[in-house]
């Protein structure tokens, strides 16, 4: 096995050095921080940040991790969620994934997340690691992942780029999901030219556990150990932070400095499969106090979130992190997005047992620190302090923006342009031709080219999957209790009227779950929009969030979590606003499911409900 450990110690900047050199210029703009954000970091710390701290703030305060442009809109969820709606919610917004009580002592957790940009750059690995990430979110709740759904948007079906991106994305989801042994039970495939340079890849995972086994990401208990386990940490997925290293590592452009490090990671589904089984055994043996997956922002995120949610501080010896590349700097180790890693907080007396379970599964596990008294996150590198920050300032107290909101000028014209002006088919021949053309159109034709690549049988609990309206899986084999899930969104409706369009997405997912025979219970969402700095986009966004929140209140089911992806645009053209809505439902016995399709018996009556 490749076990490269750093042989040369790169130059490392300590807190003491940062204190002594307050005027040293730092490449914060290159790292995506604004002037006032950098000034705020300096005021939080009372000095300039070290390289490692700067790397942490830049990733933690990025749009992706901090939700800085969208957070102010969350009040709509709160304002529209009644006590009654909250009653079945065991964990909600703010946790890794929402958790709902489905009865008989079972809790189900589910979440959807985007991996749009990486899937354009490297479709197979981008989509694959998207699946890997959402699955780790579910494990971090203490649940066994049970099923996947994937909601996909591509450019025009005949475009050259689509011919590259679609097969790669489908193969990536198939390759990773199938190898993990998770049945794929639903999703969407939609084509529209606005997605040409910006496909959307949203993956959803559903998991289950006994309600009492819920594990939340907290680092509590002074003296408890912090364990990093799973894959080694490498240089992949460091992206922007390579700016830091290339400036300070070799000091020259042409050397072995970190020029152009890929921001794409490669997934290892086999390692993740083993990691899942290992985590489940650790939970069963009650060896975990708190746990966090490593996703975007890697160790920066895991350590600061664990510490910030707990009741103490945390000390980490970063040089203990097992590395895959030579000469990595602390900033790089903290920002690496290497896949298939988890971070756990463990009582000292459980440490040996914890490590034994990891060894049984051949999972690398390393003690990298401990929970401390006080309120600091302190990170050292070969004995010298390179990070000393209040963890909440990274994880919870990032910037918050009230971005300008402006209804686009063209919206009225868009709405005035009704389909009434389109020619209608007249007579049987034209009607027939229209039906055939519709049936053959990319947005309506069979999805089996994609869905046949997904294993829907594995684990033997799948009761409904494609081509049914909803996916459905058994949770309790003894009683037949199960859950149903569906994702939906029609971006064209949302563009036309973001408020109502989002409610239509909710209503469709809700109906899909209900037509399978399940009772809808809770909602997750993945809000894919254009640039947050475009007031028209922010108007769509605000309308969509409010529409979804008020629609949920109407239906009496809560939003338990979600994910936001801004900046989905090519040049000035944003994608269709695409708030994908996922609805989860419950059924006490899946034997009573209702399969899709007209029944097999002649003489059955066909009824149309609603108007």
């Amino acid at each position: 096995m490749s076990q490269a450990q750093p042989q040369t110690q790169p130059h490392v900047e300590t807190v003491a050095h940062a204190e002594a050199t307050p005027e040293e210029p730092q490449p914060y703009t290159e790292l995506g921080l604004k002037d006032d954000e950098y000034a705020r970091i300096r005021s939080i710390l009372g000095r300039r940040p070290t390289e490692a701290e700067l790397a942490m703030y830049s990733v933690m305060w990025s749009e992706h991790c901090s939700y800085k442009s969208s957070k102010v809109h969350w009040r709509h969820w709160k304002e529209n969620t009644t006590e009654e709606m909250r009653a079945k919610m065991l964990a909600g917004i703010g946790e890794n994934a929402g958790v709902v009580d489905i009865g008989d002592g079972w809790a189900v957790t589910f979440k959807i997340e985007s991996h749009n940009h990486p899937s354009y750059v490297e479709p197979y690995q981008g989509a694959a690691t998207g699946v890997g990430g959402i699955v780790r979110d579910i494990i971090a709740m203490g649940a066994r992942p049970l099923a996947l759904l994937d909601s996909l948007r591509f450019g025009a079906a005949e475009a050259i780029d689509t011919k590259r991106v679609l097969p790669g994305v489908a193969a990536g989801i198939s390759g990773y999901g199938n190898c993990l042994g998770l049945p794929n039970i639903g999703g969407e495939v939609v084509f529209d030219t606005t997605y040409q340079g910006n496909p959307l890849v949203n993956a959803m995972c559903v998991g289950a556990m006994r309600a009492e086994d819920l594990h939340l990401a907290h680092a509590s208990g002074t003296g408890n150990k912090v364990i990093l386990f799973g894959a080694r940490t490498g240089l992949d997925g460091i992206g922007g932070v390579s700016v830091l290293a290339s400036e300070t590592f070799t000091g020259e452009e042409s050397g072995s400095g970190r020029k152009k490090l890929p921001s794409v990671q490669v997934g290892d589904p086999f390692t993740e499969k083993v990691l899942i089984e290992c985590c489940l055994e650790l939970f069963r043996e009650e060896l975990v106090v708190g746990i966090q997956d490593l996703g975007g922002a890697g160790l920066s995120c895991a350590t600061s979130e664990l510490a910030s949610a707990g009741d103490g501080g945390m000390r980490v010896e970063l040089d203990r992190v097992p590395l895959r590349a030579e000469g990595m700097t602390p900033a790089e180790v903290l920002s690496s997005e290497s896949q298939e890693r988890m971070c756990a907080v463990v009582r000292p007396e459980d440490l040996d047992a914890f490590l034994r379970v990891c060894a049984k599964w051949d999972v690398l596990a390393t003690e990298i620190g401990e929970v401390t008294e006080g309120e600091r996150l302190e990170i050292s590198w070969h004995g010298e302090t390179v990070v000393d920050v209040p963890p909440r300032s990274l994880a919870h107290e990032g910037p918050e923006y009230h971005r300008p909101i402006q209804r686009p000028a063209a919206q009225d014209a868009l709405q005035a342009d009704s389909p009434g002006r389109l020619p209608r088919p007249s007579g049987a021949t034209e009607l027939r031709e229209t039906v055939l053309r519709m049936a053959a159109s990319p947005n309506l034709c069979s999805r089996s080219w994609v869905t046949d690549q997904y294993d829907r049988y594995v684990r033997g609990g799948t009761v409904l999957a494609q081509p049914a309206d909803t996916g459905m899986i058994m949770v309790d084999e003894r009683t037949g209790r199960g859950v149903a899930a569906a994702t939906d969104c029609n971006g064209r409706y949302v563009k036309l009227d973001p408020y109502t369009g989002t409610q239509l997405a909710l209503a469709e997912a809700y109906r899909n779950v209900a037509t399978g025979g399940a009772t809808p219970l809770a909602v997750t969402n993945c809000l894919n929009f254009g640039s947050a700095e475009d007031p028209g986009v922010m108007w769509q966004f605000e309308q969509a969030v409010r529409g979804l929140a008020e629609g949920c209140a109407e239906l009496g089911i809560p939003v338990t979590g979600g994910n936001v992806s801004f900046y989905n645009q090519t040049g000035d053209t944003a994608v269709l606003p695409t708030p994908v809505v996922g609805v989860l439902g419950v059924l006490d016995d899946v034997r009573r499911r209702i399969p899709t399709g007209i029944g097999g018996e002649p003489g059955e009556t066909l009824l149309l409900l609603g108007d």
Partner: protein
Amino acid sequence: MARVVVDVMPKPEILDPQGQAVAGALPRLGFHGVRDVRQGKHFELDVDDSVDDDTLDKIAEGFLSNPVIEDFVVRRVDQ
């Protein structure tokens, strides 16, 4: 006609789970002393003499590999 070989390898900083799996299995099979293994793709192309090196590079870079995660080498071989 010429025979052209294109080798495509994961970039050094990119994870190579296949190579690691092979490297991890060798000691269990009783083979020691293999420090590292990386696995990539090997293409053999038969091309008309009209196809020049520049075109071959384009094929290798734009189609046989993804430069974001992979490096490639093109060489003509004698048959």
